[in-house]
């Protein structure tokens, strides 16, 4: 569904953030993007909807090359790509409902949005999404009155309001405590399954990434150095992505979660190969 070909980004400062990244994401596929700070993770997902203008390569979404679109075409294409941010990126002074409805701006004319006269269908969808993310009845609260976890739920709902095919998720849990992080990750993935959405999740917590996301892409200095199933992540792969470090603690906790999963799934044999590899 999404195919990146030789994507390249050089910033005006001369830094090469992406050095020929090629990637295919199938419909409904969930992909975790890991890598050290400065590896180009943020740049990569921002290049997909061209919040960052790539300096070379192609972005193919369902046969349409996004890198060639003009401004109207780009706005049109962006509606299919929802985005979720680390610091939630809500408009603090607006109500929860306005934040949700802002996900429909690409489908709404200027004057209708100026007077906040959105389609009845949009409003109905907003109410049901609020209920789904566990914020029923909060539509008239201002976004700055919510807790971190609640804000991220609004962020998720806003992205889904676009009726996207693809979600770009940028460090969704980096500002949240461990428990809320897991709840938020679970919520995002459940919603992706329910709606058959593909997602690229940029995440620096390796354990969380391998637990929730079946496919992992490792980025280092703008180059894809690993692209494969999460269960194959081991010391060698981590060293390849991040550099030398004692990875025992992390691989052990990854094994532990994998083992817990395997009790009620058919992944058992894959996990045993992982255990052998370690």
């Amino acid at each position, binding site marked *: 569904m999404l195919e990146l070909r030789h994507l390249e980004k050089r910033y005006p400062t001369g830094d090469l953030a992406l050095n020929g990244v090629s990637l295919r994401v199938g419909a409904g596929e969930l992909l975790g993007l890991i890598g050290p700070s400065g590896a180009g993770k943020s740049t990569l997902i921002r290049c997909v*909807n061209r919040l960052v203008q790539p300096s070379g390569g192609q972005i193919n979404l369902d046969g349409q090359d996004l890198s060639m679109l003009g401004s109207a075409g780009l706005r049109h294409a962006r509606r299919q790509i929802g*985005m979720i941010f680390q610091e939630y*990126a809500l408009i603090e002074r607006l109500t929860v409902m306005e934040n949700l409805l*802002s*996900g429909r*701006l690409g489908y709404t004319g200027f004057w209708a949005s100026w007077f906040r006269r959105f389609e009845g269908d949009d409003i109905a969808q907003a109410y049901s999404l609020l209920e789904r993310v566990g914020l029923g009845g909060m539509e008239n609260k201002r976004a700055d009155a919510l807790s971190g976890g609640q804000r991220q739920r609004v*962020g998720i709902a*806003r992205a889904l309001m676009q009726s996207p095919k693809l979600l770009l998720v940028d460090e969704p849990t980096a500002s949240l405590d461990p428990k809320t992080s897991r709840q938020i990750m679970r919520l995002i993935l459940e919603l992706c399954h329910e709606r058959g959405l593909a997602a690229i999740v940029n995440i620096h917590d390796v354990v969380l990434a391998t637990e929730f996301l079946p496919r992992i892409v490792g980025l280092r200095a703008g180059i894809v150095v690993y692209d494969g199933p999460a269960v194959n992540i081991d010391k060698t792969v981590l060293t390849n992505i991040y550099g030398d470090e004692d990875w025992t603690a992390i691989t052990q906790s990854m094994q532990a979660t994998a083992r817990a999963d395997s009790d009620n799934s058919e992944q058992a044999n894959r996990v045993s190969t992982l255990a052998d590899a370690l």
Partner: protein
Amino acid sequence: MTTTGTAVPPMLRQWRRPQFISNPLARWAFYAGVALYLVIGIGSLEVNWERAIQGLERGWAFVLGFLQPNFSSRWGDILIGFQESLTMTVTSTALGIALSIPVAVGSARNLVPTWVYLICRSFVALSRTLNEIIVAIFLVAMFGFGPFAGFLTLTFATVGFMAKLMAEDIEEIEASQLEALRATGAGYLQVLDFAVLSQVMPRLVGLSLYRLDINFRESAVIGIVGAGGIGATLNTAMDRYEFDSAAAIILVIITIVMVAEYSSGWLRKRIQ
């Protein structure tokens, strides 16, 4: 005391805050320079005590005028001047704010391309550099005496003032919020409405009210150079040595400024 291995610094029991000029010679030279400048500066003042005493007499006449302000003899002029000033203030503030919004957007680095930014910033810089009185003198020369020149002057000053402060506020908006709205496929104006206007609204209202009362004060000042309003009335009274009428005008100005300041402060607090 041991002298083994790596150089562990000896336990220091004294610590001084680093001086702002570390070289003591330069530091004392700097202090001496400041002292010398003060001595020479004060020494160069020429005070004409005779003139000062005369001035005291006139000043006393002025104070007496204040004790018995004369509202009645020039009441008509005061009323007309006040009306002109008020009209000038309200119209120039309204037009100035309306014009300042696009200029503010254009002066925000995070919203526009560099060339638009440079043009708008240059305009703001020009408006902020030229003092209202200078602009007023220039516009009075162009459009003649009267409140129209004052209206233009205050509009020009309002645009610079509002655009500069609003642009600073806009530039503080988080990049991710702008990204989030662009990512939904929203158009440029929709991004401005949701991400920018909604967040700078309290400041826009606050600054507008503040500017309204600055404009009223300025309208009194620029009247003195011929731009109409209550300043012109005040100027006439002073020229004729009618200190009692002048005092009445000043009292009116003070009252109105205080009322404007108090009510705008109250409104601003309500809006936050």
